[in-house]
């Protein structure tokens, strides 16, 4: 086991763990944000530089700091390593620059984009970015490409994280889309505009950190913050069948995989579950999904899925003065 300290918190991790994985073990407050790394997809990460961290002490044997910020998703932990993430102002400044690069060609059409409200790039630029853009040139634009009846591709919004390519490589028997060209003109495209019509292709929607790949059946139906997520499952012969249903009133507008606190789906779901089962009677409802209180999805929902904040429970716990131990009850009896 190797000892690593991230933002002052020490944890022991097995050999071969990356800094990012170690930080995620400590919790979402410590973990650096990621745009391209996806723990369920092999070889993902290393493209976006969002997860950079500052290594102030290389290891116990060689305590020299690393000369520049390193991508935590691709850097293996050494014994005695010390890492700064949120605690380093220079690092936050560097990450601000990364966000600016990611946004350089991003159209910022959030009012139209269906991903708004659950977009990782939106969250990232809200937390780390600058308020305005310094980019003066014409932004990169692409022609619309038809990806079949279920998936909408907006190449203009793409940040080239390669997650969708890896989904197609690792989840489906063959892929029809990939990244064409290089550099500034690189784009995600289907080869010869072939529809990706295998059973798990819909997962590219869930893994896309921005609104480049969205659900065509949900297109412009509702903003995500007007829908209420509920966990549900069904018996599916192709996938686990564990999903989140997004309700507006009594209608299921959208079905997605269940996402954890890092925005990654727990289990990939099949296209039948995602696109064709949109009636409540198709599902067994488990209850409302937990939504982060900071998320816009929990805004304005005055009933139902409002999550009581942790501190309320803690205050209630501290104020609990009733001693119901046998000794306490005896004292009470004596008083009476």
């Amino acid at each position: 086991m190797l000892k690593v300290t991230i933002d002052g918190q020490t944890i022991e991790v097995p050999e071969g763990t990356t800094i990012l994985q170690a930080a995620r073990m400590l919790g979402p407050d410590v973990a650096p944000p990621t745009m391209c790394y996806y723990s369920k997809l092999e070889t993902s990460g290393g493209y976006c530089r969002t997860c950079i961290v500052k290594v102030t002490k290389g290891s116990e044997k060689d305590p020299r700091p690393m000369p520049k910020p390193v991508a935590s998703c691709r850097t293996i932990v050494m014994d005695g390593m010390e890492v700064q993430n949120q605690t380093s102002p220079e690092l936050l400044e560097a990450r601000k620059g990364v966000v600016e690069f990611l946004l350089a060609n991003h159209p910022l059409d959030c009012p139209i984009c269906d991903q708004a409200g659950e977009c990782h790039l939106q969250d990232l630029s809200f937390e780390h970015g600058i308020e305005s853009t310094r980019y003066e040139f014409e932004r990169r634009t692409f022609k619309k490409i038809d990806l079949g009846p279920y998936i909408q591709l907006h190449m203009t919004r793409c940040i080239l994280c390669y997650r969708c390519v890896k989904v197609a490589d690792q989840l489906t028997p063959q892929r029809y889309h990939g990244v064409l060209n290089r550099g500034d003109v690189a784009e995600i495209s289907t080869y010869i505009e072939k529809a990706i019509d295998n059973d798990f292709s819909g997962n590219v929607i869930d893994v896309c950190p921005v609104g480049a790949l969205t659900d065509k059946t949900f297109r412009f139906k509702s903003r995500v913050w007007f829908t209420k997520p509920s966990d549900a499952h069904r018996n599916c012969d192709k996938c686990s069948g564990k999903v989140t249903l997004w309700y507006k009133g009594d209608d299921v507008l959208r079905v997605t995989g269940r996402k954890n606190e890092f925005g990654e789906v727990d289990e990939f779901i099949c296209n039948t579950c995602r696109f064709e089962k949109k009636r409540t009677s198709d599902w067994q409802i488990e209850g409302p999904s937990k939504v982060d209180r900071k998320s816009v999805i929990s805004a304005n929902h005055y009933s139902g899925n409002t999550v009581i904040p942790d501190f309320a429970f803690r205050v209630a716990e501290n104020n609990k003065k009733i001693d119901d131990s046998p000794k306490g009850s005896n004292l009470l009896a004596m008083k009476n």
Partner: protein
Amino acid sequence: MQLTSRAKRVSNKKLSLGERLYLPAIVGGLGITIKHFFRKKVTINYPEEQRPMSSVYRGLHVLKRDEEGRERCTACGLCAVACPAEAISMVAAERKPGEEHLYREEKYAAVYEINMLRCIFCGLCEEACPKSAIYLQSDKLAPSFFDRSDVIYGKDRLVQSMETIKTAKSLKSGLTTSDRYVDKVFKDGKY
């Protein structure tokens, strides 16, 4: 027993001769009344006369069009989520080819409703709007209602009329200060 510290002792002192005469007090009172005859009136004859409104007054909503008459609203839902009274609701639709002269963006509000009974005219929708589409006009008040069906304002009553766009002068007159600011920003090309 003293029940409260604010109790006052009442004096039962006899009135003086001047006070007992009453007449000086009556004359004094009448004087005050007569003085008000010659003062400036505090009221106006409302429907005929109207007071000047503050340029930052938050009156009836309007959904603006741009210079070419296209609707600015893209149904992003930020006004509805900002609305503390939950008065705004909308249904979005995709712009079809050939409708580019009607709607500014790819998506538009097919239905946009404000419940004027719920609305508290706080202006948060105006502040939330990223497209400068919704404004609370400073020179128009929401009328009183006599029927519940009148209360929900749809797009037919909210969208700015085309006549106000054609004449530049009337465009300015119907705008709030924040709108003028936006216009200035648009002209300066900072947006």
